[in-house]
């Protein structure tokens, strides 16, 4: 049984708060409730300021409010970082440039192993 993630928990948190879509829309700065409804149904993705507003309203991190979106972004970024790391490891640069590469590789390792630092 595969369990796919819920696209977002916006509706769930709003229902718990007792706020209506219209009230939440007014709080985050919309005139009508339509954009909130679209965000809840994952029809559209909220703009950064609105997403941050949701985080402030419900006191829940964006990664928990939009787990599927966060997961997709995270997977993409990790893939890009792995690609860069592989490129850096294969680099044959010398001198100052080699020091920069070493620092980046060190940072990438620290990032992967936060407890070891």
């Amino acid at each position: 049984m595969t369990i796919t993630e819920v696209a977002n928990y916006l509706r769930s948190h709003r229902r718990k708060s007792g706020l209506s879509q219209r009230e939440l829309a007014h709080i985050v700065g919309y005139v009508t409730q339509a954009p909130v409804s679209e965000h809840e149904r994952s029809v559209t993705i909220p703009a950064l300021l609105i997403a941050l507003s949701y985080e402030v309203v419900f006191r829940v991190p964006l990664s928990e409010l939009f787990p599927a979106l966060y997961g997709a972004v995270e997977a993409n970024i990790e893939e890009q970082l792995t690609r860069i790391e592989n490129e850096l490891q294969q680099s044959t640069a010398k001198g100052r440039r080699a020091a920069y590469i070493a620092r980046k590789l060190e940072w990438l390792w620290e990032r992967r192993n936060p407890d070891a630092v």
Partner: protein
Amino acid sequence: MNHEANHSPRVLAIDLRPQQFGYAVFEGDERLLDWGAAYYRPGGSAGAVIAGRRVAELLRVFAPTEIVVRQVRRDVTRNSFGVRPILKVIRRNASAASIPVSLIGRNEVREAFRIFRAKNKYEIACRLAAIYRELLWWLPPERKFYESEHPRMTIFDAVATGFTYWRRKAAESSPPD
């Protein structure tokens, strides 16, 4: 920051009536994600269309792993005929999304709440509001003998169905005495 995916199974519990259905979406047995009711005209295909749309939306948004429906009493003919097309639509939607549908009987629900000494629907609803605090302000007033049932009661019936499902699951997974 590492993102930890939530892999608790999600269940859509439905209480079917001829003119409305109540629903509740659970993530694990402790988290209630959404709840509400959909209203439609009894009989005809319009009700089935409205119910189908609503169920399809719930399946899309919450992607449940299972749907549990409160079994309609066969002895109440009006109910049985009224909900049959709605149940058919739910089954069709579930089948399209490869989601299993299971039925939960009235007696099983009553049995699940026996340990709480809840004897009637209102007492079951009160118990549920104590477990899921977000439902507290949805609790309808106690019904007088001359009143018809409050429309919001269908939501509590759906939550009770979901709650009973989780009790059934817990009983299946726990070792026998």
